[in-house]
Structure formats: C-alpha cells, structure tokens
C-alpha cells in the first residue's frame, strides 16, 4: 500500500485527544442510593445480555477512534498495489483512430479509453508529470509534462476520436524520443492496437471486445460505353457467415440494392453496371447493424474531365504539334507569331522560338528557344554543350536517356524557377510557377537536338504537359479521412472554395499558392469550386474512412489487411492503475458513524 498524502497521518493526534476527552467526560457524579442490591442485579443482567458489556462502556469511544483512524487513512490517500506510483513521469497515449469508435466496449472503445485514462491520471501520485499524447492520423502532444491534474483531465475529456487510421509508426518514434529524454518514464497506452517501443516497458490497456463488423473496404468506378461500372468491395470482419444487404446510391438516390453472402473473414466484390454517365456522386451502403457504423458507407466521385485548350505559337514545329495533338485532354490550336494581342482564354500556350513582348494574361506557358523577354534573362548561346545534369519530373520513366544538343541558349534561373537541365556553361531549361502560372522554358530549338528522334520524346512531352496541365487535385480523387489534398488551382481562378459534406464552405484561395487542404475528417463528398471570369468550375472528390486498416475489430484474427502488430512478448503488460481505497474508507466512516448513532440512540 502506498500513501499519496502521508502528511495526513499528523491527524493521528486526534486519537489521544478523543481518549482524553472521554477520560474527562467519564467522571461519574456521586449519587448515594439506599442499596446496591437491585443495581448489582441490573448490572449482572446487562452483562448477561451483552457479553461485551465492559467493552460497551467505551464502545462510543472505540467507534470514534475507529472513525478518526479511518478518516486519517482516507486523507492519506492510500492506494493498493500502485506499482510505478513513484515514477516521476507518465506518458499517457490514447488511440484516436476510427476503430476506437466501435461500440463493442461500453458506449464506445474511445469513451472506455478516456475513462480508463481518467482513472489512471486521477490515481497518480500528486506531482507526477504527465504527457498526454493522442495517436490518430497525426500524433499530437496534447499536454506536455504537466502535473496540473484538472488541466490534464480537461484535455483528456476534450479529445475526440477521428475517422482516420492511427499512425503507430509516428507514435512509436515520438514516444521513443520522449522516453530517451526521460529515462524513468512510464508509458501507458490505451487503445486497440499495441505499440512497441524499444527500451521501454509499455503498459497496454487493450480496449476491444472483438466486435463483429462489416465494412465497405473499397469503391471504384470505370467509364464504359454503356455508362459507368462501379465496384464495391464489402468485407466481413466477423466470426460468422452473413448475408449483407448492399445498396448503391447515385447522386443521393437509390440506384440498386443487392444481398451479398460473405463468409467470415472474407471480402466480396459487388459490381454495378450501367450507371448513368452523368452521375457525379456514387455511394455504397451496407444496411446492417454492426460495431462500427462509420465504415458502412463509402463514396466515390465521378469527374467529367474537361478538355484543356492549348495554343501552339510556332512557325513550323511538327514534332511538338504531333505530340501535343496526341496528348489526351488537349484541344490544340495553332497560330503564327502575329496577332499576339488576341491570345487569351487558353489553358496552355506553347511558344516555339518566340515570346511575345506582352505575355498573355492567362494560362500556363511552355517555351522553346526564347527571345529576350520580361519574365527571365538569357545569358548567352552555346554550341555542342555537354549535358551535366537532368532533374525534375519531366525525366520520369526515361532512365538512361541520352541525347545531344547542337546549340542552346543558357538561361538565368529566376527566383521562382527551378533548373531542370544543366549543360556546361549554364542552365538550358527550367520550370516554375510565375504569378500562379506554370512556366517551363527550354533554351534550345527542338530541331537543334536529337530528342525528337529518340523514343523518349513522347514521354518527355507527356511528362511536361502533365506538369503544365495538372489535374485539379494532385493526388487521388478519393482520399482517406485525415489525409491532406493538394489542389492545382486553375490559373484563371480568382477564388476557390471547398464545400464539405455537411455543407460548410471553406475558402482555400486566395491567398495563392494554395496550401494543402487537410480538413478531411468528415467522410463524404467534397466539392472544389473555382470561380473565374469565365464562371464557376466544380470538381468533386470524396473522403472515405480507412476501412481497410481500421474496420477489422477482431484482435488476433489473421485477417487480410490487419495492420496491427503483434506485440513482442514481455514488452507489454496490463495497465496497473492501482486501487484507490479512499472511497472505500469514506464508506466505512459513514457506516461507523451510523453504528455510533445507533448505539447512542439505542444505548445498546
């Protein structure tokens, strides 16, 4: 037993005080009686009825001493079995991932974790520093080395479970580094998947009741001639075979429903054919009660890609013209060097051997063999230079690519640009974002190289056009909750908003350039709205819960996609929160006082 407030034992001084008070009180007043004849009988009778009669004389005093002792013990805050109570620093880590929303333990796993953590923190020795860490998509230190119990509990209570997967690797490295700094740290993890930290004893409070769960683990679509074909993947993370009713919603209306038989631990693919090609939002739902409701729905966005308009300004460049014409998603227009004032409304301008004095006010720019201009400086012209370095995404998929240049201008890389090709003597090509517009400059005429003759040429061009005409979203159109999304805002756009599934509008631009958008905890359909002079442009993307990693609530079952690591033997042990005996003692005090009251009134 450990006493957290041993100073309370000073209260033991009350016990001799009680005895002294009784001694003072017990002075009997003399009273002469005619005879003790009857009184002796009375006392004999009393003793016969209550064998502890002699004790009884002091029963009230004894009860008061017991009550005082109990009170002193209660104030001393005794804890039974409080192992590790002397540790000066405790790291409390709480899993806030999606799987913690499962309702197979109490109200939810997360509430249970909070309640256990609350108990642990409340039962810690006063003065113990606590670092509170939440492990979700990102690992956050909610409170660092704090011994303010109220503040810690407040922070703990404010924690919310997210819809994302837990980032155990980050958590492990963060906790490891804290443990390295504070060697005497005690690590307590509340969650459903274990964490291993080398060199530290991790106490793991496993919160799982192996609840049955069914999930939509993937959703995808392809466009066919007959419309859209949708694939929904449904997983059965339970211990029995089930029939799951699955429905597909197209633009929030029911499109079709099916019953799917899935054996335990298996996954079924459900195909939906001939979905209307104009559809923009697809949603799969499974209508079944399980431990985790969040993963019973999944969304998929369909974006009708618009064709980008590109203007090739060239006297005669058949190589570029051919390749650009073949590039999917480009509607290519061609013009000569004249009438440069009218050039506007294109997504991409390709200038070959010419740059107008007045650069067009919109669209991205690709330049070959530029002349003097306002955007960047030309240094000199070199012949047969040796290529010293190739860098950048345009050289993707062309490893070992070798080419020669007959003549090129060397360029001064502006502050907004990045060199992509270096020859001896200077920069031969660079790319960069200038006034929210993507610019790629090559110092040479393509005819003065052997590049068009190599098989790598179309790849190089495709890479370049990919960079110059990006999708609105850099990564996938379907992301998981908590993941960040990088947008490529149309150069013509003046404003850009995101509309979340709950209808909230979040402005992401201006300012430019646009930062990554990470408020993606809520699953569902998000709409990117870009406003330009030409009107509003919409782009859909969806956020789904990471069901592949979070939906399997069965612990120890070797199911597909189970990313939980088996803890190394010996490194994990159950959490010891100790047993606070104070409430028990307070109850005992109440009982003793009740007995005392009863003894006093009944005079036993």
């Amino acid at each position, binding site marked *: 037993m450990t006493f957290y407030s041993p100073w309370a034992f000073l209260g033991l001084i009350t016990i001799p005080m009680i005895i002294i008070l009784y001694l003072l*009180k*017990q*002075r*009997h*007043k*003399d*009273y*002469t*009686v*005619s*005879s*003790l*004849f*009857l*009184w*002796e*009988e*009375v*006392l004999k*009778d*009393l003793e016969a*009825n209550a064998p502890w009669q002699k004790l009884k*004389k002091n029963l009230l005093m004894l009860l008061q001493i017991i009550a005082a002792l109990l009170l002193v013990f209660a104030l001393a805050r005794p804890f039974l079995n409080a192992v590790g109570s002397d540790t000066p620093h405790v790291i409390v880590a709480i899993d806030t991932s999606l799987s913690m929303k499962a309702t197979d333990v109490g109200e939810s796993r997360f509430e249970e974790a909070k309640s256990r953590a609350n108990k642990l923190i409340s039962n810690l020795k006063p003065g113990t520093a606590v670092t509170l860490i939440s492990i979700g998509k990102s690992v956050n230190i909610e409170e660092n080395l704090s011994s303010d119990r109220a503040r810690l509990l407040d922070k703990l209570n404010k924690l919310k479970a997210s819809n994302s997967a837990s980032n155990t690797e980050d958590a492990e490295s963060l906790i490891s580094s804290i443990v390295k700094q504070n060697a005497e740290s005690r690590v307590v993890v509340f969650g459903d998947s274990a964490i291993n930290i080398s060199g530290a004893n991790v106490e793991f409070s496993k919160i799982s009741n192996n609840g049955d769960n069914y999930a939509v683990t993937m959703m995808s679509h392809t466009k066919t001639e007959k419309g859209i074909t949708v694939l929904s993947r449904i997983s059965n993370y339970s211990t029995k075979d089930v029939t799951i009713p699955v429905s597909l919603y197209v633009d929030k209306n029911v499109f079709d429903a099916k019953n799917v038989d899935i054996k335990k631990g298996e996954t079924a693919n459900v195909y939906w054919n001939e979905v209307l090609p104009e559809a923009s939002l697809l949603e799969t739902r499974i209508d079944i009660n399980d431990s985790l409701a969040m993963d019973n729905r999944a969304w998929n966005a369909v974006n009708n890609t618009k064709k980008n308009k590109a203007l090739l300004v060239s006297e005669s460049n058949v190589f570029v013209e051919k390749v650009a014409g073949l590039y999917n998603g480009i509607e290519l227009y061609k013009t000569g060097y004249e009438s440069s004032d009218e050039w506007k409304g294109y997504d991409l301008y390709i200038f070959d051997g010419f740059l107008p004095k007045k650069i067009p006010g919109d669209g991205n720019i690709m330049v070959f063999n530029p002349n003097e201009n306002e955007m960047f400086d030309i240094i000199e012209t070199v012949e047969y230079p040796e290529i010293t370095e190739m860098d950048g995404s345009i050289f993707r998929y062309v490893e070992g690519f070798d080419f020669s240049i007959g003549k090129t201008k060397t360029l001064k890389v502006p502050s907004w640009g990045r060199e992509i090709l270096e020859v001896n003597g200077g920069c031969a090509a660079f790319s960069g974002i200038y006034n929210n517009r993507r610019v790629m400059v090559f110092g040479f005429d393509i005819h003065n190289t052997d590049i068009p003759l190599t098989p790598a040429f179309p790849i190089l061009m495709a890479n370049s056009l990919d960079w110059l005409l990006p999708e609105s979203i850099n990564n996938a159109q379907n992301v998981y909750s908590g993941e960040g999304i990088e947008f490529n805002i149309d150069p013509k756009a003046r404003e850009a908003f995101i509309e979340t599934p709950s209808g909230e509008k979040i402005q992401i631009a201006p300012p430019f350039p646009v930062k990554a958008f990470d408020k993606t905890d809520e699953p569902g359909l998000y709409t990117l709205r870009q406003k330009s002079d030409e009107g509003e442009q919409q782009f859909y993307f969806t956020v789904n819960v990471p069901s592949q990693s979070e939906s399997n609530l069965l612990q120890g079952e070797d199911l597909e996609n189970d990313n939980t690591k088996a803890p190394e033997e010996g490194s994990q042990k159950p959490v010891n929160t100790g047993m606070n005996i104070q409430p028990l003692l307070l109850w005992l005090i109440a009982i003793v006082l009740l007995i005392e009251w009863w003894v006093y009134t*009944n*005079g*036993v």
Partner: protein
Amino acid sequence: MKSQLFDSDFLKKLEQLVISTKISLADGASGNRKSRAKGSSVEFSDYREYSIGDDFKRIDWNAYGRFEKLFIKLFMEEREAPIHIFLDNSKSMDWGEPNKSIASRRLAAALSYISLCSYDRVSLVCMNDVVDKFKSDLRGKNSFSQILNLMDSLEYKGTTDIFNTVSKYNLKSGKGISIVISDFFTKGNLLDMINYLQFKKQEVYICHILAPQEVEPEIGMSLRLIDIESGEFRDVTSSPALVKTYKKVYKRFITNIEDTCKGRGVNYMFMESSLPPEKMVRMVVNGS
C-alpha cells in the same frame, strides 16, 4: 424529630382511625373482638400450604387428592394474640423522598397505637443486622409514649439483615401477630424468616416500604452509585437499556417477595413512602 414525626395532627388522625374503622389486629387477653388469627375453632377461615411442624390432623386430604399438595385448614380462633412489630432501622431505610424512615416509623407507631387502643399486647423491635432496640409487652394507651420515645431516639445504622435478625429475637411462644416493616434490600432468605415466624405460630404481615426513587430511579447521566450502608459503589451510564433492565429487575424483586408470601399465606403489602400513614394502616388492617 418528635414534632415532625408524630405531630398532633397525626395523633388525631390515629384516634379517628380507631373509631371509624372497626379495626382489630388481634384479640388480646382482655379484648372482646374477634381475632383474625387462625386457630382450631369450628369456624373455617382459609387454607395454607403445609409446612414442617404443622399438625397432621389439620391436613385437608380432600384438597391433597385434588391438587397433590398438602394444605392445612385454618379456623377462626378466639384467643389472645400478642402483636410484634419488627421495624427495620438499617441505614438503607434512612433514604428517599419522602424518607422511608419517617414513613416506616409512622406506620409502626400507628399500628402500635391501634393495637394498644384495642387492649392488645404490643412489642416493638427495631433491628438492622442486630436487634437494636425493643420494647416488649406494652399494654394500654399509656404505653404509647414509650413507643414514641423509642422511635424518636432511633438511629439508622448498620446493614439490612432482617431475615436473620428476626430469628435472633426471642419470640415468646404462643399465637400472635408479627408485622415486619422493611425495604427488604437484603440477601437473606425471606422464606426462612416466614417459616420461623409461622413455626412460632405467628400470623405474618409483610409491609414492604420503598421510596418512589427506588421504584422509578431518576438516572440522568453517568453516575457513581454509592451504597449508603456499605459505601461500595458501582459506575453506571444512563441509557434506555439501563432503565429498562432496572424495571425488569425491580419487578422480579417485588414478584419474588410477593410469590413467597402468597405461597405461605402471608399478608404482603407494598407501600411507597409517599403514601399517607392512614392508608398504610388501612392496607395492613384489610390485609392487602
């Protein structure tokens, strides 16, 4: 003491008592009223349990057949019976409010006076653990002053041992009446005393006098109870259980004495010291 104990009011009341009630305790040698003493005349009076020394001839065998107990028939007897009044003057009697000593002395005096007025022979014996003082064979109203003098000079001392002391008093043989006045706070055997008195052919009257504080003790706090006779003490703390047990013990005490008396055909009178003397006297005369 004299004026307090036996004032003229008290004596007047005694006179009235004698006149208004046709009191007779015993029919003395020169008395002409019917005695209540049981004898062997033809007029049947009562039954009582057989005790050693009784005449076999007087056993009622019919009653034995019915109850399987030996009973003796008593008959009205017309003959002289001297009256003995045994008064307890142990220290315990000098206690209570009103004081038991006053009540008991007034009762003894009244009984003596009535008996003297009825021309009966009166002996007054004051005793504690020994026979302290006595006046025997007093006759006539004139002797009453001797009784008053004795009582006035009576000191309360010693312990109650009246049962043994009675037997130490040399009771003259012959039928008579014995009245014992005491609080009976003694360990001695009441039955032995009754047997002795009945053996001496006495009709026994037991006057049990207790102070109201002994019937209903007023215990308000932690007390050290000190025995007035021995000086011994016991500590008690007031509690409902204590009062309850006292009442139980008190009732047992009274019932024991009462039952013993009833079993031996003895008249038992319980009196609180607050009772007026004339009422006490009536109780004795009426035998209840």
